[in-house]
């Protein structure tokens, strides 16, 4: 690998000792210097946590908002911006949004407009997929500052969920059960005895990708992996949540209580949960190899 020579020679030792992400920034910069980005960025994002300053850029590239070539970035971005402002303008014209409309709803309406699902009236009740969108948008709003970027990332993220992961998302609950059985069969049997397995908040976990369940700071690390093309991480986050709160879950006996608890898990340990979940993911699915 060419960038290996430029990377800090200590990086190997850093990783051995357990410091992760020390050299990531630099190597990411090296990666970003390449003219065609895409694939290597994808692997990188799966392997290492992204530095937050490059996150938006990497996500945009990975989600196809920006082309892999640097030269066209500005142009494409202007297109995107124009499109954004056009759609926004159109919405204003048809009086779907106003200045008072919350940004998340604006995003939703824009998305609806672009996908041709704009309801006849803004007062129509939201459909379930809109709810998912709103949840993701809310989380994303916290992560990305620029509203254009934000809208585009949300849009592409949701599109990715709806298109790329359409087939794999329904499989996740099964995978979840399988891995939970591997990790802690007793917990699973407890859940089964409570008949809570089918009632776990799979919508929250897999459809919304934990939006609203985990705080954004840790959520974005999960989404790094989702954006870079692996939705299985969601399963491991879910497993890890159950493992972390095992004692409490074991103490609860009814499915409703468990579901309720899992829908409102305490936020303080989320960072640890995510780190452990990523480790678990690496353990079960193997560390993605650099595609060199």
């Amino acid at each position: 690998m060419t960038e290996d020579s430029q990377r800090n020679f200590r990086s190997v030792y850093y990783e051995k000792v357990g410091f992760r992400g020390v050299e990531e920034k630099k190597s990411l910069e090296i990666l970003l210097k390449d003219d065609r980005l895409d694939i290597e960025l994808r692997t990188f994002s799966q392997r290492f946590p992204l530095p937050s300053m490059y996150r938006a850029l990497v996500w945009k590239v990975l989600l196809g908002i920006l082309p892999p070539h640097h030269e066209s970035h500005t142009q494409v971005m202007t297109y995107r911006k124009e499109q954004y402002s056009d759609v926004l303008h159109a919405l204003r014209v048809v009086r779907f949004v106003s200045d008072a409309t919350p940004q998340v709803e604006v995003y939703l309406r824009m998305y609806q407009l672009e996908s041709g699902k704009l309801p006849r009236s803004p007062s129509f009740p939201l459909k379930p997929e809109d709810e998912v969108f709103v949840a993701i948008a809310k989380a994303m709003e916290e992560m990305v500052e620029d509203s254009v970027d934000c809208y585009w990332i949300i849009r592409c993220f949701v599109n990715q969920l709806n298109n790329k992961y359409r087939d794999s998302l329904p499989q996740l609950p099964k995978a979840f059960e399988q891995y939970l059985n591997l990790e802690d069969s007793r917990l699973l049997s407890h859940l089964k005895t409570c008949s809570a397995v089918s009632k776990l908040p799979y919508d929250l976990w897999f459809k919304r990708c934990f939006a609203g369940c985990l705080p954004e700071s840790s959520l974005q690390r999960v989404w790094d992996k989702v954006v870079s093309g692996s939705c299985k991480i969601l399963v491991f986050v879910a497993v890890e949540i159950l493992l972390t709160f095992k004692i409490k879950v074991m103490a609860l006996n009814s499915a409703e209580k468990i579901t309720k608890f899992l829908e409102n898990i305490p936020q303080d340990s989320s960072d640890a949960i995510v780190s452990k979940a990523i480790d678990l993911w690496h353990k079960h699915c193997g560390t993605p190899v650099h595609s060199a």
Partner: protein
Amino acid sequence: MAQQANIGELLSMLDSSVLSVRDDVTAVFKENLTADRGPMLVNTLVDYYLETNSQPVLQILTTLQEPHDKHLLDKMNEYVGKAASRLSTLSLLGHVIRLQPSWKHKLSQAPLLPSLLKCLKMDTDVIVLTTGVLVLITMLPMIPQSGKQHLHDFFDIFGRLSSWCLKKPGHVTEIYLVHLHASVYALFHRLYGMYPCNFVSFLRSHYSMKENLETFEEVVKPMMEHVRIHPELVTGSKDHELDPRRWKKLETHDVVIECAKISLDPTEASYEDGYSVSHQNSARFPHRSADVTTSPYVDTQNSYGIAASTPYCTSRLSSFSSPGQLPPTLSAPSTRPLTEPPQATFWSPSVVCGMTTPPTSPGNVPPDLSHPYSKVFGTTAGGKGTPLGTPATSPPPAPLCHSDDYVHISLPQATAVPPRKEERTDSARPCLQRQHHLPNDRGPEELSGSKGSVTLSDLQVFLGNLAFEEDSIEKDKEEAAISKELSEITTADAEPLVPRGGFDSPFYRDSLPGCPRKTHSAACGAQGASVNAEPLNSSLDKLGPDTPKQAFTPIDLPCGGAEGSPAGNRERQTSLQTSILTPSPCKIPPQKGAGFGSGQPPPYDHLFEVALPKTAHHFVSKKTEELLQKAKGHTAEDYRPCSSPVEVLDRLIQQGADAHSRELNKLSLPSKSVDWTHFGGSPPSDEIRSLRNQLLLLHNQLLYERFKRQQHAVRNRRLLRKVIRAAALEEHNAAMKDQLKLQEKDIQIWKVSLQREQARYSQLQEQRDTVVTQLHSQVRQLQHDREEFYNQSQELQTKLEDCRNMVAELRLQLKKANSKVCHTELLLSQVSQKLSNSESVQQHMEFLNRQLLVLGEVNELYLEQLQNKHSDTTKEVEMMKAAYRKELEKNRSHVLQQNQRLDTSQKRILELESHLAKKDHLLLEQKKYLEDVKLQARGQLQAAESRYEAQKRITQVFELEVLDLYSRLEKDGLLKKLEEEKTEAAEAAEERLDCCNDGCSDSVTGHSEEASGHNGEAKPPRPGIARGSSGSRGGGGSSSSSSELSTPEKPPSQRAGPFSSRWESAMGEPSSSIPATVGSLPSSKSFLGMKARELFRNKSESQCDEDGMTISSLPEALKTELGKDAGVEAKPALTVDGPHPSPPTPDSVGQLRIMDYNETHHEHS
């Protein structure tokens, strides 16, 4: 219930006098008990027993088996709770537990125990208390582990009762207190024996209190004088005492003996294994124990002794003498040594005399001490003189090869003791003294008696000996003693009496004091004084009058009370009562004696009782008696062989009690009552009761003692087993020794042979050495030879080596030669080839030479020719040569040129090739770039496309919005239009109503006007169009109807019909219904329409109300038509508006609009 009745009957039958019936009924009960597990039967039995005191029932109850024990205990527990039945229940309990049922371990858990303890703590009746305490004492060794829970109860009871003894609460008679005291003493003993640490700490805590101090001084302290320090006090601890593991190892009788061991009281203390009792004591105790057991009965014995003793004694004697006709000297030493050589010493005459005990006692006894004893032996032996033979015969009669038998024999003799004593007490005493003078008459008797005592003691000693394993020492001592004895036999004639008397005096004197033989006892005492020098403590003590000893040995008191005559008894008792300082179980005998005074039990039973301390040998005693009877040919008068002595005694006591109650008024009572009243001052009736109670207490005490004795018996049996085993082992040892000797002999023989063998061996060795040296020299020579040979062979080998080398060299030379030959051959072939070649070359050369010659000739010819022609050709030739040369040069330069060109072209080619490569590369790069660019462009394009998409969506949204707005507008307009139409129609109808015929045309015009409200003008051709446009559906119908109605205007209407239909067909394309409305839409917006609307706007407010009115007021046909029209018109307009806002295409609208305008224009023009 039938069963109940049956049981009642059976119970009554139990007491029948017919023995077989009784047995049968008992069997029936036992069967029932085994079959039935319920409590009912047991309960009835207990009830019945408590009512009647029936003996058979008692027997059944005491032999109850496992499942019924609980019922029995429960029932008894129930009755113990009741004060009335308490005493009898307790005695029942005593009976039951004395038999040690298999379920005795359950007693500790049974509720009966706590209630018994409670009763002992609460009850105030002395009889109950005494009975209870005795029961408790009996029970304690059976359930030692229960101490853990009830220990403090036991101690409390002890504390309470001990203080009772002193304080005598209420009006308790002294007589009862004596019993209580005795039982408390026993309890003290048991508690101290079993739980010394706990008990001592209890005593310490309890009697440290001041209010208890007196009790301690008066009651407890004397008790403590009769116990030694318990070893557990040193080694054990409070917890260890209560440890169940400690008790697990011990059986009941073990516990009893353990308790007995710590007693200093000679009656109680164990003397069997020299626990710590001195040997003097152990030697003496047998007599004592015998004495004690007899003492209670002494009185009775006294009463009948004179009559009974003599025949008995004689019979006994005969029994001994009749089998003992073998020569004594032979039998005694010969039989014994055969089996047990070490024991042979025991059977020295002195042993036979009965005085062996001290000398045979283990080495603990200092030699000095043994000396006096030996003297005693000597004297006794001497005293016996001739009769010596007879006692010696006693062992042989039985097949006396085993120690077992030996014991057996000793026991019959032991049984013989009591009669002897009896005899002595009555009459034998003088005989004793006369012994020497009348050896023939009395001697055997005396001897048998003394022998009995001796064998008893002897057994003890023997056991002790075995235990200590100090046989050898004893032997030595004994031998010394025997020799001394022998020497002294002749000299000491007067002496024998002294030791004998001293030895026997303890009991003789005990029994004597009150009787006429007191004087004799005094003499004995005098004799005993000489024995004082001996370390026989008790005998020392007993030498003096009775009173000083009372404090020390409780036995003395009873013995004192055991005097024959009632009067003496009384005296003794009174003296006792006054000085009840020492608690002793033996105080009972006096009372018993008193109680039995009137009783007439068969004498034999008592003899058995006396013999019973060694119950193990009871059987043997019986046998001997049987033998006796056979020998004598007649049986003893009262002898009952089938019933056991214990039963007989019980029966005796009961019979005595019965007789007593029966004969209360007759015989003895008056005198007794007189006596009692004289001393105690209590009235006779009271006296009877007290006597009865005393009897009861006595019985209890007796039973308790008997129980103890049984425990001893059990232990004795076990010890006997040990003795047998020890004897067997000794025999085995002897055999081993013999074997050892034999083996030693063998060893010596072997040693001799060994020496011989050694000598032979040395010889052989020498021979061997010489041979070896020879062989060595030979070997050396041979070695030398071998070395020589070796050297030779080496030389030869070197030679061989040389030869080999030579051969190798030669071979090499051969090889070289060969190669040379080969080489030369090769050379030869080459040379030959060359030769052939050169030959061919020579031939060739010859040929060439010939040719040369030929050519030379030819040349010469040509030269000639040439010389001929030379002059003209040389120039030409030279010219040609020059030309050739030039040409050659030219060609050369040309070649050079060509070469150069080739080089350059080649270079060029290379250059071009590199260019090509570069270009290819470039091309690739270009392609890549192009790809990139394409990608880039695609990206951008995608972005643009998405933007376009977005734009498309936006426009769609916009369109939607616009259309929405349109539809909204349209809806509004349509509604208004409808309103206008309706109002117009109403007006027209009104007008029509006003003017009939004209009105028709008016109405038509009005109708047309209304229909074409958009177009505004009401011209003849208009209405048709208007109607067509407005009522597109009902157009046909309406036109026909209108034609029917308005005949005057038919032509125009007809004209309009086709037109309208044509228009309709034109309009039919876009959609069926909408075109009309849509078509009318722009027209409504048009200028004319606006105006028309303005015209009717005012009326539109009241339209709704008027509508209904006008419709109703219209003529029927018209009304229906109108209704139809309006309904049809309104509905499509409304329905079209909602669902289909988008379909209308601008083209059709435009068409319509154009058409409308055209129409209007056309109509205008």
